[in-house]
């Protein structure tokens, strides 16, 4: 199954999903398409003027273009998702996922999609980390059972 993860570039989440035989929908996949595809301004490093337009599908015109630009990357990943794992309060809120409003919009879209969602808090110590890993594995196994 295709599992959306949040934060979408998390090493721990992507690795755990892959270990259980599922496909993690990671942000890097979308980034790769943009930085390796030869184009007229090839290859574009940043957003092109097309991206905020694509993002209009996910956010209204009043929403800042940064959110719409980010949603052009993250929106297609959310659409593909069959299930999702959301880890809130992750400390790495910078870089491509450094926008709090985009994060909120992504989580909102994942929650309203009517797919199985596992919500966790970012672990801060050893015990919490072990619990989070066990919960993720249990969740991923339960998805397999549901799908036969």
């Amino acid at each position, binding site marked *: 199954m295709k599992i959306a993860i949040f934060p979408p570039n998390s090493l*721990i989440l992507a690795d755990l999903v892959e270990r259980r035989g599922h496909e993690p929908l990671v942000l890097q996949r979308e980034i790769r398409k943009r930085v*390796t595809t030869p184009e007229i301004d090839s290859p574009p490093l940043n957003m092109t003027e097309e991206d905020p337009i694509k993002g209009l599908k996910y956010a209204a015109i009043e929403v800042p273009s940064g959110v719409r630009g980010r949603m052009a990357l993250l929106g297609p990943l959310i659409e593909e998702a069959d299930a999702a794992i959301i880890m809130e309060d992750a*400390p*790495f809120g910078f870089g491509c996922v450094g926008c709090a409003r985009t994060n909120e919009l992504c989580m909102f879209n994942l929650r309203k999609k009517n797919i199985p969602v596992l919500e966790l808090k970012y*672990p801060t110590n050893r015990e919490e980390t072990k619990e989070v*890993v*066990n*919960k993720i594995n249990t969740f991923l196994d339960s998805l397999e059972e549901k799908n036969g």
Partner: protein
Amino acid sequence: MSPLENSKVTRMIILGPSANISQSELVRKLHMMELPLTIKSTCYGAAVSGEEDVVKKAIDGVRELDPYNIFSKDRGFPPGDPRRCRAKRGGAREGFHQLEKEFELLDAVSNALEHPQKVSLKKAKKVSPEEFKEIAEEN
């Protein structure tokens, strides 16, 4: 950039803090596989780039060395890309800070993978006022 570059994927192989192999051993093992890959030794482990199925084969191969301590994740930019490479930027590349933060938890992650425990995903129920009263009176 050739059009062929487009079909290539790049993955980072990250060694956990308790891994029983070193970066150089990891890179040597990757070279010994004789797969058509670009391999780059890094501080966290290695970065490999090549066709998707070949990269997957390499990752599965190295994971066997220490299944609970070798982690892997996708990377958007190819290894040594001047737009992201530390050598050209003069500072850590953007993704490094996140990797550094998650690295702190990897020891506990590998421990949990090695010793899995059953957990319930159901949220704990709230205690009713009657039940709470009973508990309070007991003590």
